[in-house]
């Protein structure tokens, strides 16, 4: 635990509002001119507009086209744009929390990874995962949510097991407290 000299406490409801104000400029950037980052490029495969979703400090960029290589190229360019905006706002992206997913029907073998230019000039490569976690939900390429159901079910089983221990009638807590 760390002494806090200023600011607002963790979990404060106003932090969500302040965060929304703070990152509103980034969302405006995409909403007002969504293709500004690629408008000078002649990209094949009919790519859609790149969409940015933000929930506080979690972000997601999505794009669709006829080619995964084109998708990766666009996402890489847009990522740079996001990174630049965040740097101006005094923020940085967490290199350890970047995940790439291609939502396709076929096999993911051979699907392209993405190379991202970081603020320090280094390049990080993000490979494909079988599932990605975003806002506490595990997404798989076919949106079957099998892993998510398995994870949540095991978590529920663990909770029930813990309650069972507490409910021990001879040595556990009284049922009054359960």
């Amino acid at each position, binding site marked *: 635990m760390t002494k*806090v000299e200023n600011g607002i406490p*963790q979990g404060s409801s106003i932090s969500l509002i302040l965060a929304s104000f703070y990152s509103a400029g980034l969302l405006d950037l995409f909403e007002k001119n969504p293709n500004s980052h690629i408008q000078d490029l002649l990209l094949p495969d009919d790519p859609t507009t790149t969409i940015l979703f933000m929930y506080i400090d979690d972000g997601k960029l*999505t*794009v669709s086209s006829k080619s995964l290589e084109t998708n990766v190229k666009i996402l890489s360019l847009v990522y740079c744009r996001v990174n630049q905006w965040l740097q101006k706002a005094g923020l*940085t*992206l*967490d290199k350890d929390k970047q995940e790439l997913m291609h939502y396709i029907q076929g096999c993911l073998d051979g699907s392209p990874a993405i190379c991202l230019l970081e603020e320090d000039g280094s390049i990080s490569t993000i490979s494909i995962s079988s599932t990605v976690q975003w806002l506490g939900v595990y997404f798989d390429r076919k949106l079957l949510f099998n892993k998510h159901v398995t994870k949540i079910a095991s978590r529920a089983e663990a909770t029930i097991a813990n309650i069972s221990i507490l409910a021990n009638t001879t040595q556990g807590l009284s049922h009054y407290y359960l």
Partner: protein
Amino acid sequence: MSALTFDIKGYFDFIKHDRLLVRNAKTLNSTGISEVDINLPIRKESSNMCR
């Protein structure tokens, strides 16, 4: 469809919030954010606030 998820580092790291409010004040202003509320009074009595 392809999706890239990312996370902003230390977004709620208010302990180091001077990093956002002081050093980058000029940058923030250039992005259109007002400096009216930048110099908010600092609370000294909030020792029970923990992350």
